[in-house]
């Protein structure tokens, strides 16, 4: 019984002694951390996706507090509202950036882009693209092996087995940019997000010459430049046989869509403009009705 008592007493004494030592050590070596970091971390979405370029939200919060100029920092998941809230809390000015959405710029479905061979190796776009050109004649298009699907932390992207192409669910996409980095072909781009997921974009990244594109894919961009001429907002540039629509300049007027001879420019969430531009909008009830919510330059968000 005595042994037990002494043991308990000794251990208690040791415990108290260690606690005292630890208390003083903790005082001596205390790391002064800005309490605002914790606050900012709470304001961030907490997805730890790495879309901001930091390993997690804590890293981002740390950078937001420590840097005087935070205009280069942006949380794509939280978006402009989150950044505004953080900035007003810290008394700094945040970068103004509208909401964005990941866009897969390839329209080469199985019918449009016939398969010329069968890939048999490891199921990875990075592996396939380091080995060869891909299952079709197009050297630039979507391989459909799903590196972007693996990279997405939000389950917002999936490869459609019917088309063989990656497809983004705009409702789930946070524009963190993980898929953009994962795609070895550089097909995915973060583009301005319009209301109701409307979009006009060149659904092709082929820099091949027109004749080569036509052979490989029915909906490829041949770099003819017709869209560039028709664009009133200077949003379209053609470089290396490829048209590109700057989503920040584009007003969704849709003139380029009708102009494109191959149908490489994709229109999402809207009806195309009537083919005959001289038809009065009032006369045709149907096109006018659908076109109404999207006037030539919708500025209202």
């Amino acid at each position, binding site marked *: 019984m005595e042994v037990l008592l002494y043991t308990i007493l000794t251990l208690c004494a040791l415990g108290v002694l260690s606690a005292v030592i630890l208390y003083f050590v903790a005082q001596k070596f205390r790391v002064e951390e800005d309490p605002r970091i914790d606050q900012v971390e709470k304001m961030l979405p907490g997805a730890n996706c790495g879309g901001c370029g930091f390993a997690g939200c804590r890293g981002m919060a740390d950078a937001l507090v420590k840097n005087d100029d935070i205009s280069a920092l942006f949380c794509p998941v939280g978006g402009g509202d989150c950044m505004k809230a953080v900035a007003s809390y810290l008394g700094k000015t945040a970068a103004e950036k509208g909401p964005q959405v990941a866009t897969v710029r390839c329209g080469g479905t199985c019918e449009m882009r016939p398969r*010329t*061979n069968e890939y*048999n*190796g*490891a199921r*990875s776009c*990075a*592996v396939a693209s*380091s*080995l*060869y*050109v*891909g299952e079709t*004649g197009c*050297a630039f298009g979507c391989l459909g092996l799903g590196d972007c699907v693996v990279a997405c932390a939000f389950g917002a992207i999936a490869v459609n087995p019917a088309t063989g192409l990656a497809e983004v669910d705009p409702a789930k996409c946070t524009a963190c940019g993980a898929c953009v980095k994962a795609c070895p072909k550089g097909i995915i781009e973060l583009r301005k997000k319009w209301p109701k997921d409307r979009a006009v974009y060149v659904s092709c990244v082929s820099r*091949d010459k027109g004749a080569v594109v036509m052979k490989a894919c029915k909906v490829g961009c041949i770099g003819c430049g017709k869209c560039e001429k028709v664009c009133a907002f200077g949003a379209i540039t053609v470089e290396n046989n490829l048209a590109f629509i700057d989503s920040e300049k584009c007003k969704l007027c849709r003139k380029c869509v009708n102009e494109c001879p191959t149908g490489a420019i994709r229109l999402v969430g809207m009806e195309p403009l009537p083919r005959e531009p001289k038809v009065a909008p009032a006369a045709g009830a149907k096109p006018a009705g659908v076109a109404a919510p999207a006037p030539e330059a919708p500025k209202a968000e």
Partner: protein
Amino acid sequence: MKTFPIGGVHPSENKLSCGKAIEVLPLPDVVAIPLAQHIGAPAVAKVAKGDKVLTGQLIAEAGSFMSANIHSPVSGTVTAVDLVPNGQGIRQMMITIKREGDEWAEGIDRSETLVRECSLPASEIVAKIKDAGIVGMGGATFPTHVKLSVPPGKKAEALIINGVECEPYLTSDHRTMLEHGEELLVGVTILMKALDVKSAYVGIENNKPDAIAHLRKLAAQYPGVEIVPLTVKYPQGGEKQLIAAIMGRQVPPPPALPIDVGAVVCNASTTYAVYRAVQKNMPLIERVVTITGKGLKEPKNLLARMGTPIETLIAAAGGLPEDAGKVINGGPMMGRAMVNLASPVTKGCSGITVMSGRDAVRREASQCIKCAKCVAACPMGLEPYLLSKMTQKKGWETLEAQMITSCIECGCCQSTCPAYLPLLDWIRLGKQTVMGIIRQRAAAAAPKK
């Protein structure tokens, strides 16, 4: 009998064309010459559209020391210098030439007479090899003049001629040794002179007894040249494996080179090309290509000009069989599957293997059962299952520490895996990425000096 100590596998040899004498393929009508068909910087085109060229004329100059000259394999008119899809469909800069007749540039000796004596000093031999654009013809396409330019402070002790040809199906080196043995041995003496070494070993696997006997008989007249028969084991033709087999020395991990253990290795076909370049002024414009496969009507060895479309070679061997599933540039172990048969023969193209349907398809991969067969098979002493897994997990630091850059991409691991895992596919990707990281780090460190 000698062989290398670590790992290795025994794939079926399938040397279908080993008894077929080298045939000369008729001149192609159009050739396409890639500017990057060797390791190092791409060559710089010296001709433009519309230029007339002669056979053997320089059409592209080495882009740096680590690069190689390229000569026109035919005479005719340059029709384009443009991006053309290669065998893998990847766009590459190529010079396209339409053939007109067969007019040769001056100074090239096309006769078959043997020229034994070479009185040139070492520096001139290396210069001639450089001018002729000779690169390793076993497949690695390392510029030969770079190998022969021994850096100061290092000394070559022995020359090793690689006549192993361990890759299944391929027989181009075998036939070259049999039919051009004498020239090859003169090439060996030229290389020995260039390197200032007293001994040379010709390593040949003992599945080629005719080549061993033939060269042994001839080698009696060439002091210092020894023919070394080797036990059959893949990948004995790997430079480091061959040095281990013949000299018993291990080349340290990259960036170390064979010269660090006093060895210089040169492929048999390359040695023959060296003979032709130095003694006959013949640039590297043609090579022996094995065209083979079980479904093929007539597997054979063809002497083809560079730039000949590969479909022409297949047609010469009886055409593509109906059940062809895959056409491989190279052999089944290390070759690359092709998607574009119009692509040209290049300096590193030792063979074309046509796999029939059943052999062509990979079996479905299941889970790794940690049997470690791949570890036992790896001739570099690496752990392939780990390298493959870490590549998938993007653990680049671990991969670097695990020496992924030592991988020679021989495919032993993948061929031995009972779960049919695509180990090498992943390892290749990991190796490329890690090498990129190392290069970036070196580039970032360089300006500080």
